[in-house]
Structures are given as structure tokens and as C-alpha cells.
């Protein structure tokens, strides 16, 4: 029987220990790597292409959710968390498997059983990680950094450095002070999760940071155009103009 390759990503050593100890009872599970932070976890996933990942949410450098955002592989994920009411609610709504620390072995057993069933059905059946993230409602507090991936390089862009977000088919282009980065995500996600007082959706395809706007000029019959401090010219739709008006009180 083919073994199920498993990666454990968890920053606290005792938490890794107990998981490994429990998993000894599952001969079909083979732990290929263990990681103590999100970056290491991401590397381990692309290196060993696991079938199953135990993923902590709160971790240094890259959180469990951020890791999923930039992961290209499609392993089955079992989240582990100690206390995060927001995440738990999201998991329940979307039938994503999770373990609440501390958990009994029976709870792990049922999670692993479900995971094995999913893996048995073949990779095509497994929800892609991005879909998983798509289903998660926004973060409870406004977003404060965005994780992007270029090839194998991962970078974290602080929201402070964001200039604007541009829609590009199924992707968004994140324009920031030191360049731009493409990411598979929806405009709605950013509209919902960027701090609403700083960012305004000025157009179907643009969300802009208001402090980056230098001036707004009329354009055509009843459209406007926003000229940024850095010189870019972004179209402003009629609805977008109204949003701007509301936000800036002019």
C-alpha cells in the first residue's frame, strides 16, 4: 500500500511531539517533514509534495492562511489551532477539517480517516487551496500585509506600502512602492479586507489608496480619472467617484 506523505507545520515543539506520537498509530501515514514556521513549511510542501498537511495557523514569518494563499500544490489540509473563534467559525461553515488543541486521539483518527478518503478519490477531487481560501470569509481585523510569490521567492508586502490593486482576469496585480506582484485572488477579497478608511474602490478594476491620489480630473462625458503621486492615471467610474466623494467629503 502506498504511504500517505505527510508534513507537519507547527511552531511549538510540544505540539509537534504529540501529533507525531498520535500518528505512530497510523501505519499508512509517513511523516516526511516537520517545520516550525510558515516559510519552512512552504518549502517543505513544494519539495516533498505531500498528500496531507497538518497546518497551524498562528506561526512566525508566515501564518497558515498566508501559506495556503501562495501554495501551488494541492495537499489535503487539516488545520490545527488552539483558540481562534473566527477561524473555527470559518472552518465549520466550509466543512474544512480542523483540530482544536489539545485534542484526543479519536478526534485525530476521524480527521485522518476523512483525509485518507479524500486522497483515495484522487487529486482532482481535492479542493484547490485557493478555493479553500476563497471560501474563508475575510480576516477579523483589517489586512496588514500581503504575501506574494514570484517563482520560488516569497515576499510579504506591508499594506502601508500598497499603492493600488488592479484586476487582471482571475488575478489581481498588487502595485506597491517597490514594484508589483501578481496574485490569484479576487477584487472583492481586497475590497472587504483592506482598511476601508484608507482604500477606495474607484472602478470595477481598481482599488486605490486614497493618500496616493494626487488629483482627480474629469474625463470624457461623465467619468473621472485619478492621477496618483507616482504619475499613474487610473480610471474612476461614476460609482467610484461617489465612493471617493463619500470617503473624502468633498
Amino acid at each position, binding site marked *: 500500500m502506498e504511504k500517505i506523505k505527510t508534513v507537519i507545520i507547527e511552531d*511549538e515543539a510540544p505540539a509537534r511531539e504529540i501529533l507525531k506520537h498520535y500518528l505512530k498509530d497510523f501505519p499508512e501515514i509517513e511523516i516526511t517533514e516537520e517545520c516550525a514556521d510558515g516559510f519552512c513549511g512552504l518549502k517543505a510542501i513544494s519539495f516533498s509534495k505531500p498528500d496531507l498537511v497538518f497546518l497551524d495557523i*498562528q506561526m*512566525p514569518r508566515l501564518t497558515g492562511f498566508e501559506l495556503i494563499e501562495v501554495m501551488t500544490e494541492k495537499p489535503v489540509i487539516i488545520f490545527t489551532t*488552539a483558540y481562534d473563534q473566527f477561524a473555527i467559525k470559518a472552518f465549520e461553515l466550509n466543512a474544512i477539517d480542523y483540530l482544536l488543541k489539545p485534542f484526543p486521539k479519536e478526534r485525530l483518527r476521524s480527521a485522518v480517516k476523512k483525509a485518507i478518503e479524500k486522497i483515495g478519490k484522487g487529486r482532482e477531487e481535492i479542493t484547490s487551496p485557493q478555493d479553500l481560501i476563497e471560501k474563508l470569509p475575510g480576516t477579523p481585523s483589517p489586512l496588514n500585509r500581503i504575501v506574494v510569490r514570484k517563482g520560488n521567492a516569497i515576499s510579504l508586502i506591508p499594506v502601508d506600502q500598497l499603492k493600488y490593486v488592479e484586476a487582471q482576469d482571475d488575478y489581481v496585480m498588487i502595485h506597491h512602492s517597490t514594484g508589483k506582484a501578481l496574485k490569484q485572488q479576487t477584487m472583492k477579497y481586497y475590497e472587504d479586507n483592506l482598511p476601508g478608511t484608507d482604500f477606495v474602490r474607484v472602478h470595477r478594476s481598481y482599488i486605490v489608496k486614497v493618500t496616493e491620489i494626487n488629483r482627480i480630473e474629469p474625463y470624457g462625458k461623465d467619468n473621472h480619472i485619478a492621477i496618483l503621486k507616482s504619475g499613474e492615471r487610473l480610471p474612476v467610474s461614476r460609482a467610484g467617484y461617489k465612493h471617493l466623494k463619500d470617503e473624502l467629503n468633498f
Partner: protein
Amino acid sequence: MKHPVLENRIRFVVWWLVWLFLAAGQALLYYYAYGSFVNISILDAVISLLIYSALALSIWYPFAFINRDKTGPLNLVMNLIITGAISITFWILITRLIIPLLLPGNEDFDAYWSATFPYRIGTGVFIYSLIVLTYYLFMSLTNLSEKKAREAKLESLVKETELRMLRSQINPHFLFNSLNSVSSLTITDPEKARAMVIKLSDFMRYALSRKDEKPVTLRSELENLRLYLDIEKVRFGERLSIEEHIDPGCMETKIPVMLLQPLYENAIKHGVYESTEKVTITTSVSPSDGFIAMTISNNFDPEAASAKGTGTGLSNVSRRLELLYGNRAILKTEKQNCIFTVRIYIPADYAT
């Protein structure tokens, strides 16, 4: 509502003195109204006002009754007039019945009575108005002081509640992760698991038992913080290290209970959680000219772009200092060379 005169000895005395004064006035007035019978008018004044005074004391009860919150102004005026009319009629009738009994065989009384009758009605109305005014004055003063007392009570209640909220916030994340570590240690190192359960119990006991704002010594506060950090050390291992520089002279200084806890939680959250490198949390306490200076610092990973919290921990601590010390305490933070430092100065003579 309490009776304004009967419940207070001084007011009771003043009340009768005023009536004495009124009696003198009435005796003079009635004497001049008729022009003679000075002895009858004096007796009349004393007796009739004795009766009126007793009546006036009992008027308080219907008065308080008709002045409950829901009476409309028109109703109120009607009620006052009716009460007044009944009282005055009653007063005149009783006076008319009693005085002749005290003056057996006096033939002048009937003439005196009819001559002073209109004045009597005037006196009745005048005194009734005085009584109503007095009672209103009393009522508004009582309402005012009651309102003030209520407000003061409410304010202290709000402050107390706020302090309680600011004080007792054990991070559930900490609790459940620690329990998970215990669960793990029961397998790998039962001895250590037991030690951790005991530490966790001691910490929880300290945190839960401190329900009121009683100051504690720096010594016991530090002991508790060491428990907390020891527990966290089990979770984070080599990633967390602790340093202390405490001036021994400060150990018995009183400080607010669990004041520093949120600052350590912050150091863990923004330092240890976000970093893969070793994070050192340093605590220094030293006396400083009638104050004690407490400094807590930790290094952090500058790469961790998110290390921006909601500011709840810090703002809770500074709000609490404000409620307890007014402007006599200072909280300062600084971020330099990847080290985050919080400095607190509080008066060394704290006692509540």
C-alpha cells in the same frame, strides 16, 4: 420619601419657631382688624396655628403622593387646590369648635369671629402657599442630592467595572496552547507535565483570585510573571529567554495587580510568535526619586511585517494607570534597533 420635618430634629425646632412667628403675626393682624379683644386674638392665634401646624405636617403625605412622577401639570394644580381647600375648611371648622370651649361664657367671641372671618380665609390661603412652597423647596433639594449621590455611585461603578475588565484578561490562546503542551508532555516527560500543570494552576489561581483592585508587592507580581514565562518557555523552548535586573529595594513596593501581564503577553505575541530567532525578554526595575521605573523590553524580527497589533494590551495598561493614578503615572514606548521597550513610572507610595 421621608417626612422633611418629622425626620430631622433641627428642622422640627425651626418649624415650630416659624409657627410662633406666624402666630404673633396673626394675633397682631386680627387684633387690629377688630380693634379690641387682644386676649381673644392671642389665644386664637396660638390655638388655631397649633391646629394648622399639625395639619400642615400631615399635608406632606398627600403632597408627596400627588407629586409622583407621572402627574401632569394641570392635574397637579387641581390636586393642590383641592387639598388646600379641604385643609383650610377643615382648619377653620376645628378652630371654630375648639376656641369657644376654651372661653366659656365669653360673649365677645361671636363678634370677633365674624369680624376676623375674611382674614382667617386669607391667613389659611397664605400659610397653605407657604407650606406648599417649603415642601417644593425641600423636594427639589432632596432630588438634587439624591441625583448627585446616584451619579457618584454610578461613576464609581463604571470605574470599577472598567478596571475589572482591564485587569482580568487571560489570553485564551495562551491557556489552550499551554494545555496542549501539557497533553504532549504527559507522553514525552510526565514529570515535566506535572510541573507545568502546577505552574499553570498557580498562575491561574493568582490571576483569578485577584478580583479587586488591591495592590500587591512587586515581589509577588514578579513571581507570578515568572510562572507565566516558565509556562511559555515550555511551549517555545530555545526561542524564548528571560533576563531580570531588579533592584532589591523595590521588591516590597506596592503595584497594581497584573499590571505588567499584558506587556509580557505583547512581548510574546509580537516577539516570540513572529520570530524564528531567539527572543529575550528583559525586565528591569529601579527606584527613581519617589517613583519606581519598570522597563520591559524584547527584541523582534524586523522582517515580520505584520507585527502591528491592535494596541489593546498597551492601551489597557495605560488606561488602567490613568484610572488608578490620574496623571501621576507615565507609560512610554520606544522602538529602536529591533528592540521594543515599554517604560512605566509609578509613584512608589501607592496605596488604595
